[in-house]
């Protein structure tokens, strides 16, 4: 999405020829990612409600975390201490929020559907 569409909140700005418009992001769904598909097919997919096709080049060979690695995890005191040292206080967090003009507000939890 990054290159072809701009995004504002929950909305994607989309262009098709000379026309521009806004599509709600939750109305946009991906198709299966295919290697090497071009942008035109991606745009076509968006218009049919199947966005994202062709956007991602699959990276094979990148090793991720796997179960064996997780089960072989060992305690690392130095890293834990680093994590502890980086903790933020509520006051520190509130100051940072204020710098970003973030204002806390009430909002009810969502019921399960």
């Amino acid at each position, binding site marked *: 999405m990054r290159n072809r569409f701009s995004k504002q*909140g*929950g909305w994607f700005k989309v262009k098709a020829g000379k026309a521009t418009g806004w599509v709600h992001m939750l109305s946009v*769904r991906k198709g299966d*990612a295919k290697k090497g598909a071009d942008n035109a097919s991606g745009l076509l997919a968006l218009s049919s409600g199947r966005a994202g096709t062709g956007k991602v080049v699959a990276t094979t060979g990148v090793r991720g975390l796997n179960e064996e690695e997780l089960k072989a*995890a060992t305690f690392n005191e130095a890293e834990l201490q680093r994590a502890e040292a980086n903790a933020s206080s509520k006051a520190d967090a509130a100051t940072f929020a204020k710098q970003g003009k973030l204002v806390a507000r009430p*909002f009810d939890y*969502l019921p399960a559907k």
Partner: protein
Amino acid sequence: MNRVGRWVATQSERPDLPWHFGVIQSEDMNAFAAPGGYIFITLGLYRTFQGEADLAGVLGHEVGHVIRQHHLKILQQSKLVDAGSKALSKSVGGNDKVQQLIGSGAEIVARGLDKDAEFEADRIGVVLATRAGYDAYGLPSVLQQIGHAAKDDNRVALLFKTHPLPEDRLNKIDAAMGDRFDRVKGLTLEKRLLKVKK
């Protein structure tokens, strides 16, 4: 990350837990929470974020697991508790106890929580980010980004194994959000997000 995480967690009913947030140096895309308020995001997942609101939404999801004690429920349901208590009753040394706990934690991470716990954490993540003043769609945006990864991409293998697929999660959160957020404005803070170089 700690400032954003703490601000988001402060909007929950457990603002005073000793919250800790960190990054795991892995190109895998995943995020983890542990009971007590330890939350970690992989570098690979962080790279998908386009603004601070995305980070806030993901941290809100993990905060959701902690405040609803999802891990403890899994521990209680599984044999992990038995295994843990047996090991402890053998009066093992301190390091062995810690290692036992790490083993149980890693086991949970590898197995994953149940699907409903993930859907619930998604709903909480969206709400906590909104309460914190962020745009509500950070977490859904990240789910879309993850959903773009090919199913054979190693970086999402564990995530897809332990979580419902992004498509299902987007459908659920879409239904739960409905029109509740239509008039709710929030900040995405794209420029403030720290970019991490390759």
